[in-house]
C-alpha cells in the first residue's frame, strides 16, 4: 500500500460525529452499524463508485471531517430515499447527507450548480424565470399567467444568510 493511502488518525476530529448529530437531519448518525444496506440499494452507487453512503458515514464517524466536507461525496446523493426506507437502523441517510451539506455550506463549500440555483431563486423566486416570453407562451396554450414573487424569497435567503454562503 502506498504511503499516501495510509490515513493518519491524528488528523481526525473526534467531535465531528457530535457536530453532525447536532445538525437537524444528522441526529441519527450514531445508530449506523455499517451493514451496507444503503450502499447496496443506492442507484447512484449502482452506476459509479464515486458515491458510497456507507463509506461516507464511516468516515464521518471516524472523524474524517476535512475529507468528508471537502470532497464531493455528500453532493452525489440523489435524495431518492431508497436507503432511507431500507436502513435497519433508521439512520435517515438522505437527511444526514443534507445535514453534512449544510455544515459544508457554512464553511463556504458550495458547488457551483447550487450557487447558480440560489442566483435564480433570488432573481425570480423560482428556478426558472417566468417573464413576458414565458407568459406569452403559456397564453398560447390557454394557461393562466404567472407573476414572479422574488422579493419575499430573497428576504428569506438574506435572513438565513444563504446569499453570503453562496458567494
Amino acid at each position, binding site marked *: 500500500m502506498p504511503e499516501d493511502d495510509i490515513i493518519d488518525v491524528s488528523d481526525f476530529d473526534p467531535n465531528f460525529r457530535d457536530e453532525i448529530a447536532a445538525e437537524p437531519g444528522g441526529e441519527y448518525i450514531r445508530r449506523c452499524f455499517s451493514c451496507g444496506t444503503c450502499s447496496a440499494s443506492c442507484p447512484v452507487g449502482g452506476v459509479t463508485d464515486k458515491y458510497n453512503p456507507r463509506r461516507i458515514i464511516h468516515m464521518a464517524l471516524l472523524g474524517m471531517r476535512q475529507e468528508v466536507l471537502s470532497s464531493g461525496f455528500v453532493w452525489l446523493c440523489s435524495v431518492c430515499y431508497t436507503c432511507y426506507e431500507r436502513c435497519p437502523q433508521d439512520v435517515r441517510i438522505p437527511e444526514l447527507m443534507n445535514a453534512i451539506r449544510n455544515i459544508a455550506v457554512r464553511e463556504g463549500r458550495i458547488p457551483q450548480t447550487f450557487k447558480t440555483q440560489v442566483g435564480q431563486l433570488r432573481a425570480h423566486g423560482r428556478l426558472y424565470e417566468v417573464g413576458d416570453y414565458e407568459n406569452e407562451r403559456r397564453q398560447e396554450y390557454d394557461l393562466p399567467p404567472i407573476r414572479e414573487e422574488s422579493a*419575499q424569497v430573497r428576504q428569506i435567503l438574506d435572513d438565513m444568510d444563504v446569499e453570503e454562503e453562496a458567494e
Partner: protein
Amino acid sequence: MSRYALYLGCTVPVRGLNYELSARKVLDRLGIQVADLDGFACCGFPAKPLDWKAGLLMAARNLALAEAAGCDLLTLCSACTGTLTEAAHRLKEDARLRAWVNEELARQGKKYSGKVRVRHFARMLYEETGVERLKELVTRELTDLAVAPHYGCHYLKPSHLYDGFDDPENPHSLERLIEATGARVKHYEDEGQCCGGGILGFDEDTALLMTKQKLDHVVAAEVDAMVLICPFCAIMYEANQRRVEGLYNTAYKLPVLYYSQLLGLAMGMSLEEVGFKLNRVKSRKLAQLFRE
C-alpha cells in the same frame, strides 16, 4: 370555493406545459375546480441542502398562502410534493418550530397554523376520485397501448410522510390508474430506480448514466411509451433522451407521456388537446392511434 389550490412549482409552468394543460383538462372533466393563487414561489427543495431553515421557510410561505385562501395544495411535481409535505408535517407536529417559522413569516405579513394538506395529483386521483370513477369517464379504451410506469421517488418516499399511502417498495397506485385507461402495464427491471435528476447539476455524467440504465430497462420491456408523474423525471427521460442516445451511441425513440396525457386520451381528448405537440419524442403508433 375550490378545495385545492394548484401548486405548479418551478419546472411545470415553464418546462412541463403539456403536463399542466393536460392535468387541468382532466381536472375539468372530473368537475374538480382548482384555484390559481397569486404569490406562490419555489417550494424550497433546492434550498434545503444549503440551509434547512431557508428551505423550510420557503415551503412554509407557500403553505401559508394556501391556508389563507382556505385551500389544500394539489401538486404536479413529486419533489414539490415531498418538500411541502415534509414542511406541513413538521409544522403541524412541532409547535416550537411553528412558532419560529411564524416569527419569520410575520415579517412578510403571513402566518401558518398547520392546517394545509398536500396531495400529489396522481394520489388525489387514486384516493379521492378513485379508479372506478375514472373508468366511467373513459370513452376510448387504450387497449392497443402497452406502457411502462415510472413512479419516481418523492411521490412515495420517504413513506412516513405519506401516512401509509401505497407501498414504497412495491407500489401499485400508478399501475391501477394506468389500467383504468385500458392501457396495458408492462413491468421492467429495476422499476423503482431514481431518474438521477437530483444530481444532474452536480455530476451530469453520473446522472445521465442513471437515466440510461432505466431507458435500457424500459426499452427492453417493449412498450409503446413510458408513463410518469413528475416533471423532473420527464426532463431526464424525455428532454435528455437524445443526449443519452448521443453519449452512448444508441437509439431509444421512447415516447414519454405524463399520466394526465394518457388519461386525457382515454377520455377522448386528441393528441393536440393533451399537449402532445410539446412532447419531444414522437411515435408513429401514437399518431396513428389518435389520428383525428
